[in-house]
């Protein structure tokens, strides 16, 4: 009788080991879901180009900014619009130092898409402007709005090179 009990216990242990092994393999070997956010720029027809890069003063610029939340949980996003030049433009590590000319904010669920129609009237003239759109989010632990970065630590932003000529 003792021999059969040992057999049953051994079978149960083998079953448990197989179940645990399967779970661990699925956790360690399968690639983890990538948690990221996306910001993209579309023209007024909701297409990825052509964009209005040469405009006249006082004319309207129509664009759409698209934001996706794939960060796994609900996020409170801000899209900050800045008119930068070559010295104040954003790079991978630093947001643009130009002042904010427009700001939109919205809370997105995981997997949700947000389209922001942008209508701007350019009152200043000049060349090599960078109409920059940066993605920021509210961080409750810091009680502050911080720049959203991808898994490589690069900030998320898009920009439109812009030349504004006199009327």
């Amino acid at each position: 009788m003792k021999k059969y009990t040992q057999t049953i216990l051994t079978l149960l242990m083998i079953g448990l080991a197989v179940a645990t092994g399967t779970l661990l393999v699925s956790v360690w070997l399968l690639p983890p879901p990538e948690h990221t956010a996306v910001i993209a720029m579309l023209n007024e027809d909701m297409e990825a180009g052509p964009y209005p890069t040469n405009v006249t003063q006082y004319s309207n610029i129509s664009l759409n900014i698209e934001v996706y939340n794939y960060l796994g949980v609900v996020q409170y996003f801000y899209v900050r619009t800045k008119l930068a030049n070559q010295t104040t433009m954003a790079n991978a590590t630093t947001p643009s130092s130009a002042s904010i000319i427009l700001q939109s904010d919205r809370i997105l669920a995981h997997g949700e898409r947000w389209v922001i129609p942008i209508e701007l009237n350019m009152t200043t003239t000049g060349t090599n402007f960078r109409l920059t759109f940066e993605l920021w989010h509210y961080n409750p632990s810091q009680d502050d709005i911080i720049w959203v970065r991808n898994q490589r630590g690069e900030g998320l932003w898009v920009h439109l090179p812009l030349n504004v000529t006199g009327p």
Partner: protein
Amino acid sequence: MQRHPANLILALFLFMVALSSPVIALTTVYSFRYEHVSYQPEAQAQQAIDDAQSAINSAYTDLMLADSTGASITDLLSSLNGAITELNQARSAFNTTDYPSAITLAESAQATADSVSTEASARRSATLVQQQAQLIIIIGVVIITVFITYFALTRIIRYQREKKREFLRMEIRLSDEEDGEDT
């Protein structure tokens, strides 16, 4: 009886004081309101906007916690985005110096955010309780399954063992009978 002129002056003075005291009191009250409440609408509107933003941030934190526990938050998310829209409208009104509208909109945004915050916390608690109950049920089912399997397997093995013994006994009996026939 002759009235003294000093008494007359005193009576006149008291009469004037009595007459002017409500005026003084009202002036004091209105000057206080001028300084602190009614005549600083810009500061009041700014305060209402700041309070609404804090309430939205707090509601967002509660919403994020509820979302991470798996609670349903779709309707709350929609309400909170409505509060954000109202707050942005309040800021627009503030920028056009329409302070009464800014205050009304900001207070409405704050009320919505506060209600979202309360509801999100309640749903998070309810979901946690539900998850604990589910965990207890799963553990219970696993334990019962293990016991039933163990019991069933031991009975099956015992039955098979008895059948084998019985078969062996039959074989022995048969060989005994064959031995008897030979002799």
